[in-house]
C-alpha cells in the first residue's frame, strides 16, 4: 500500500521547498516510494507517495507539508491512489 499526496507550491524558492520536504520525510522516518516535482513558471506541482505508513503518520506528513509556505493540496477528484 502507498499513500499519494499532491500539492501545488507557489514559490520561487523551489530548492528550499524540496529541502524542507526531504527534512520532513527524514524526521518522520517514512519510506518514500515516489517523489516528483514539475516546475511550471513560479509554480511547482509536487507529488509524493509514501509506503506502509500508519494513518497518523500520513496525516502528520500532510500537516507538515501544508506548513510549507505557499503549499496547497491539490483537491482529490477520485479515490485516493493506492498501490
Amino acid at each position, binding site marked *: 500500500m502507498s499513500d499519494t499526496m499532491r500539492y501545488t507550491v507557489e514559490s520561487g524558492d523551489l530548492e528550499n521547498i524540496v529541502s524542507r520536504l526531504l527534512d520532513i520525510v527524514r*524526521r*518522520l*522516518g517514512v519510506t518514500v516510494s515516489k517523489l516528483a516535482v514539475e516546475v511550471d513558471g513560479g509554480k511547482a506541482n509536487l507529488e509524493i507517495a509514501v509506503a506502509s505508513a500508519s494513518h*497518523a503518520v500520513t496525516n*502528520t506528513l500532510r500537516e*507538515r507539508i501544508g506548513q510549507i509556505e505557499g503549499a496547497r493540496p491539490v483537491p482529490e477528484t477520485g479515490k485516493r491512489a493506492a498501490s
Partner: protein
Amino acid sequence: MSELADFSAVDLVEAYRSKKLSPIEVTEAVITRIEASEPKLNALWAYDPVEARKAARASEERWAKGEPLGAIDGVPVTIKENIATKGTAVPLGCAAVSLTPATADAPPAARTREAGGILLAKTTMPDYGMLSSGLSSFHKLARNPWDLSANPGGSSAGAGAAAAAGYGPLHIGTDIGGSVRLPAGWCGVVGLKPSAGRVPINPPFIGRVAGPMTRTVADTALYMSVLSKPDARDTMALPYADIPWLDLDRDLKGLKIGLWLDAGFGQSVTEETEQAVKRAARLFADAGAIIEPVGPFLTRDMIDGLDRFWRARGWEDVSRLSPEKQAQILPYIFDWIKTAENFSGREVYTGFAQIEAMRNALHTALAGYDFILSPTAPTASYPAEWASPVNDPQKPFEHIAFTVAVNMGGQPAISINCGYTANGLPIGLQIIGQSFDDIGALRLARAFEAMRPEQRPWPKVAA
C-alpha cells in the same frame, strides 16, 4: 556562595533545622530580590511583604522551639492567582472579572499554609488561563527573566518567571493543556503536571491540575509531599497515597523509553529543540536505558475538536456578561471564544469526544514504554507581547501538541531544562510517565538533572 533568595527549599529547611538560617532573613532576601526585579518582570499580584514578614516571624518561633508546622515551614512560596487564598480576589487574569475576596483557601493554598509555607504573593496569568503567554487584560505584561523581550509562557506566566528570577524556591501553577510545563520549559525551570487528581484542587475539571514549579526536582518533590494531601472538596481527586516523594534515586538500566519528536499536529519542532531533546535522550541511553523512536500519534481532528469544546465552554461564561464587561476581555481571547456563538450541539459534542480520542492515543503510545521523552514545546520562547507562538486566535493551540494530550490522558509529566538556543533561551524536555507514576517521572527527571551538562547561571533581573 549563592544568595539566600536562590537557596532551594530542601536546603532552606535543613538550614532552619540546624539553625544556620532563619526564615526572617531568607524572607527579607527574597523581598529584596522581588523589589529589585519586579518593576521589569511583572510576575506578581497581591504582593504582601507585611504578611510575609509576619509569617516569617511566626515560623522562626516555631523553629526555635523545634516545632515546625510541616515540610516547608518558613519557605517562601508564590501561588498562581487562580488558586484562591482567603481574603484575596481571584481575577483570573481578566479585567472583566469582579474583584470579590475569596472566602476560603483553595486546597493547594490550604496545604501550603498548613505546612508553614510563607506566602509572598500571587502570580500573574492571562485571561481565564487560556493563553500560553504573560499577556493579560488585568495584569501588567509578564516577561521572561532570561530575556525581558521574550515571553515567560503561560498560563502560569508569573510563576515561571518568578521561579527563574529567584522569588523564593517554591511556586505553584495550574495546567489544563500545558500551563505548568510550557512556562517551566520556556523559563528553564522544573514544572510538574501531576497525575489527574493527585493534587486536590477546587474547582476540578477535565484535564485540570495544579503542580509545583521550582528550580530543582527535589524541591518539586518536597512540595508534592505537601500538595498531595487529601481534600474532600475535590470531587475528582485520587485516593490519598503515601508516596515516598523524597526517595528520588533510580537506576536507569533497562528502562524502555520512547522518544517522541513529532506530535502529529501543530508547529514543527525546530532544529535547536530537536537536537537538545536528542542529546537528552542520548544521556539516558548512555546510562543504560533503551531508547526507541515514537511516531506521531495525535491528529489535527483531536486538537480542533478540543478547541471547539473549549471555545464553547468559554462562550457559555462570557455570553452571560454585559457588553461593557465583554469589552474588557483581552480581544484575542474574546475573538477566540466568540466563534462558538453559533456552534451546534453536534459540533460541541464531537469536539468533546476528542478528549477520549486523545486519551486513547496516548495510552496506546505509552503501552510499550516505561516513559516517553519529548520536547515540552516545539519552539523556544517568543515575543513577550504575543498571545502565543503563532499569535493567531484562530490557530490558538499549534504549540501545545506535546503537552495537551497528557492532560487528557491524565498521566504525570514533568518539564526540565535540557539546553539553550543560540540566543540563550531555555529548551524544555518533557518526561511523560505511566498513569499514576508521579514518583517515577520525578525520579527520571532527577536522574536527568544529575546527568545533564552544567546549567547556565540563573538570570538576574535588575530594575
